[in-house]
């Protein structure tokens, strides 16, 4: 798990439990990602954590064919995607699972979780192909 700093500790604790958690502003109701001290829309500093549905759609994607560093060498080709969550925020993820290389913009995706040596990462897979 990368860096569970004070802003995002709850996000990573939830991932350990295989839940995708988002901050929701108590001032204007906007869900936000990444987590932070105040709402970038209304500047309220009051927020609560809530469990996201884990459903989203592909806004854009790319197949990475040259690894950025040695630790990704065994993974290429892999898919990097921008996902629009049902709750509104946009995330970057890998597309994992069967058929990932056959993604199309607009495809429905759902969250899944990848256990790494250093923690649990939210990932997404295509709905219907997984």
């Amino acid at each position: 798990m990368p860096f569970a700093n004070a802003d995002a500790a709850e996000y990573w604790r939830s991932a350990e439990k295989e839940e995708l958690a988002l901050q929701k502003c108590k001032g204007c109701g906007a869900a936000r990602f990444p987590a932070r001290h105040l709402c970038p829309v209304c500047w309220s500093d009051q927020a609560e954590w809530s469990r996201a549905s884990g459903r989203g759609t592909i806004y854009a994607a790319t197949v990475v064919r040259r690894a950025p560093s040695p630790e990704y060498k065994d993974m290429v080709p892999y898919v990097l995607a921008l996902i629009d969550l049902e709750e509104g925020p946009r995330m970057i993820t890998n597309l994992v699972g069967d058929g990932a290389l056959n993604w199309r913009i607009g495809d429905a995706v759902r969250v899944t979780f990848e256990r790494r040596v250093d923690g649990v990462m939210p990932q997404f897979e295509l709905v219907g192909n997984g």
Partner: protein
Amino acid sequence: MGDSLRNSAVIVGVGESEIGKVPHMTGLGLNAQAAKRAIEDAGLRPADIDGLFTAYSFTEPYFMLGSVLAEYLGLKPNLCASIVVGGASPAAMIGHAAAAIAAGRARAILICAGENRATGLSRDQAVSALAAVGHPYFEAPYGAFIPSLYGLVANRYMHEYGITSEQMAAVAVQSRRHAALHPNAHMRTPIEVSDVLAAKRISDPLGVLDCCLISDAGGAIVVAHPDLAKDQRKAPAWLFGLGEHHTHEHLIAAPSLTEFGASVSSKIAYDMAGVSPDDVDFAELYDCFSIVPIIEAEEVGLCGRGEAGLHFAEGHAAFDAKLPINTHGGMLSHAHAGAAGGLFGVIEAVRQLRGECGARQVAKRDLALIHSEGGIMSSHCTLLLGRDRR
């Protein structure tokens, strides 16, 4: 804002270092070589410089790079800073320089950028440099690096506006043709569209020839009070307009992948200069990847939405065509080394405005547009430079 900085400053000197693989020079050395050439080009002496701006370096371990460079050059300026908005840094520095000159804080400001990025980086440093722009917690752990983030931008833009890989390839081909006419360009071997499409794939739809070079290179310019230009041998380039707009840093926070801050920054610049896109004679557009000048040409109003790809593919961006773009070869073929990439567009525009460009000289040279962006289409700065005071 209005026309507050119109005609407030002129660019009186420009200089480039040796470019390509220059292992016998450090990054600071490349900056110094470019600075010496720019000050000589301006007909000034080092003692005339009372301000210094620079950006950042991934190759050399210095904090406070502005002060470091001043120390290296033996300058003791009254104004000194490192300004970091990625590739937009040099253009933004020109804005800060013009404001400082207008406020009476300095009269001749040296702007430098450059790195020994081709020969001065270990593999580990090169990787961390490429990953540095991705969000460290929420992008980089997924194997996101600069080319793949721009791959996402290209994918969405192609989806929305029908830009094709062939049109993107035409950007790289045109840049190489211009670089072949530039004596100091890093890559001058001709390429064709088929070469770009067949080149090693990096992150779809981008292949290696869609990606900017990694060069050892430094650039420098001198921005001065217009009074200083009166006695100079070479004609100054007048700053008519400039605008910035910053919408995000990380791609996950971009408001859109089809409309960016360049439309706002260019509007501010056009309004300041009192001109419109129709008045622009040629453009130097930031081209870290082949998709980027296509987006920028549309955003700043030089082409309609979805039309800039054809502008390149049909040859209209050539130096002797309708609207020349990246007449020095851009970062795809002339040079890219940190923040120097954006600076070379400014240097080229000044030389074109003066009529010094020989075999690649544009015919109409009254008004140049320069657009630079940093991050992942994050920080935008548009400049309008011209030949005569307006």
